[in-house]
């Protein structure tokens, strides 16, 4: 009896479709090749990139393993300067809070900068249902929002689209003339969004880090949309997972450049902003109110799994997606998760249920490229194995168990194994020929592989006659 969730079936179908789509693969390969070149060049400029990884991992270990203390310090510092902090157990509570706030403020227009956490809790949909329209201000996010689809990649949301597709999209939705130039396309979005920042009553952002020592959030970006979103509207709401807290302000001297290097290959991104409260009395501008929502949403369940706790070290740089052979072939949308690639495959079963998402643990060649590239040294590919093990322990597959028992039994009697192998030799080509009519799970195995021929003479035979 094999348990295949509808999510697994969908993943499989889309993976097959996209793996055969050579145009799609070429697009992703080109984009990631330029990333890889930039990343390798930048990492090589570090005096010691490996020591930096070890250091970053140690800082995250300290923060995550004393999370209660650092969160309290963080929140106390923030509230002391007028920030309103709301602790949300799940996405529903966080969404309800923002919708209620929009209502209280009589908001007519909301602008938002990139936040994967808001994707995780479907904040835009919740606000939409409440009658509030949210405009995404990050260019890539703006593009996928116009297409009414999810971000393709947690750092490069629109990497699956060509300039032609984006030009067509703008023509259809914004009635702008067609153009081949990425620059002109960017300027169209700039013009469209310019007034939105000024009109918006509420600006929503994410947070890349939360600094406990000084009570600040840190936002990393390139475009300036997050700066405008957090500077102009009267109310700023930031949404942050509880795992984003770090102990010291000076820790950012390491994290800001490492996030950029691993994420895009830049030495540091264009804007790295620290926000520690609403406008202070001596300041000429800034929001009158700053609300920070701290989100659990199953993170404490992952925290309780000591073996995989380091998955909470993730700084969402996307490097593991970029190097993953599976991601490169099946693409970001196939995962159907907020967080794609290896990190998504590790944490989604914790965030959304092991039995529905365990198939992602197999979306890996276990090559370990993800673990090797991770700037905070998360043991990604071993966690995929642990998820496989945990899924089997939770729901053992009797057929699979029988097969492995039989195999274990046979290996204890080599003479018998040898004889069986000899007997099954003629059936191998038959099985390969008849692959389409074989029953599962054999069918699944031979569908894309040939059963290897069994040698005429076994190793034992050779050994005997050497």
């Amino acid at each position, binding site marked *: 009896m094999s348990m295949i969730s509808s999510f697994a079936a969908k993943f499989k179908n889309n993976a097959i479709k996209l793996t055969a789509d050579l145009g799609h693969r070429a697009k992703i390969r080109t*984009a990631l090749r330029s990333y890889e070149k930039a990343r390798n060049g930048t990492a090589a400029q570090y*005096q*010691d*990139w490996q*020591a*930096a990884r*070890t*250091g970053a991992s140690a*800082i995250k*270990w*300290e923060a995550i*393993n004393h999370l*209660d203390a650092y*969160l309290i310090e963080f929140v106390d510092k923030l509230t002391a*300067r007028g920030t*309103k902090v*709301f*602790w*949300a*157990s799940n996405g529903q509570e966080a969404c309800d*809070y923002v919708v209620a706030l929009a209502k209280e403020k009589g908001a007519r227009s909301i602008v938002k900068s990139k936040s994967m956490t808001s994707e995780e809790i479907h904040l835009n949909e919740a606000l939409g249902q409440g009658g509030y329209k949210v405009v995404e201000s990050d*260019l890539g996010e703006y593009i996928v929002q116009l297409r009414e689809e999810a971000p393709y990649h947690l750092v490069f949301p629109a990497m699956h689209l*060509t*300039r032609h597709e984006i030009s067509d999209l703008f023509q259809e939705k914004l009635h702008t003339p067609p153009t081949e130039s990425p620059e002109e*396309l*960017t300027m169209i*979005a*700039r013009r469209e969004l*310019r007034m939105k920042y000024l009109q918006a009553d509420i600006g929503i952002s994410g947070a890349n880090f939360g600094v406990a020592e000084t009570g600040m959030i840190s936002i990393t970006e*390139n*475009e*300036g*949309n997050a*700066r*405008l979103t*957090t*500077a*102009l509207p009267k109310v700023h709401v930031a949404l942050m997972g509880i795992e984003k807290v770090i102990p010291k302000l*000076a820790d950012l*001297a*390491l994290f800001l450049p490492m996030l950029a290097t691993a994420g*895009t290959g830049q*030495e*540091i991104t*264009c*804007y*790295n*902003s*620290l*926000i520690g409260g609403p406008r*202070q009395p*001596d*300041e*000429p*501008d800034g929001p009158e109110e*700053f609300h920070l929502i701290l989100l659990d949403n199953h993170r404490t*369940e992952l*925290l*309780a799994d000591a073996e995989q*706790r380091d998955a909470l070290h993730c700084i969402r740089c996307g490097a593991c997606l970029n190097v993953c052979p599976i991601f490169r072939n099946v693409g970001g949308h196939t995962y159907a998760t907020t967080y794609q690639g290896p990190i998504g495959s590790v944490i989604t079963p914790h965030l959304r249920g092991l039995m529905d998402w365990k198939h992602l643990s197999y979306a890996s060649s276990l090559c370990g490229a993800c673990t090797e590239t991770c700037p905070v040294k998360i043991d990604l590919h071993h966690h995929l194995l642990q998820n496989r093990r945990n899924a089997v322990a939770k729901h053992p597959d009797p057929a699979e168990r029988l097969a492995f028992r039989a195999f274990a039994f046979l290996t204890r009697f080599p003479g018998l194994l040898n004889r069986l192998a000899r007997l099954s030799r003629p059936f191998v080509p038959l099985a390969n020929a008849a692959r389409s009519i074989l029953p599962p799970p054999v069918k699944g195995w031979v569908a894309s592989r040939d059963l290897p021929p069994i040698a005429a003479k076994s190793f034992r035979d050779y050994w005997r006659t050497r």
Partner: protein
Amino acid sequence: MNSGRREDILGRIREALRVPAPHSHAGQAGAPAPVGRGQPKAWLPAVPPDTEGRLALFQKNCAQLRTELHLVTDVEEAAKILVNLRDAHHWTAAAAHHHSLLDPVVKFLGLETLFAEHRLDPKSLEKCSVGITACDALIAQTGSILLTTRSAGGRALSVLPPHHVVVAQADQLVPDLPAAFDLLYATYGTNYPSFATFITGPSRTGDIERILVLGAHGPRNLTVILIR
């Protein structure tokens, strides 16, 4: 004030942390070695030890980032650069804040100038061609500018107008990011402004086919006038 599920979440965290985590998959127990404040300096990209070397590195980074850098000897020369920029870019209105470095320079501009004082209205600022600010530090290692609401006239002045001009002094150039954070600690101590940002080059995006485009939402032009 409704703070939500604070005690629930903290309770779950404490419960979860009762089982200690290994610090590597090899199963090593206990905490990894802590990171000392000075350590990252030895891991990040190297910075020349001398002032001239740092200035050269800052120049090189600016060129790569497409930050326009002008080295000048005094305030008069800085004013001249600003006037040239005004003509070259056809500025019609400027925005700035009062600051000992800016006041003697901005007065030569001869443009209607909006000053960020007690309040700065975003709608008026949006009509300005340029935002002129001071800063807290320049960072040689990355070619960055560090500024805060206090040093640079608030949050919007340096990001809303299409051109951002920074006027700085040579002694504001610090070697690297750890030094910039040391400076933040030393300058603001327990009374931080509500906003600080590291600006590294003009606004940019690579969201369309990973091709670099400048001026995504923030300033398309970034100019640093450095008085030596």
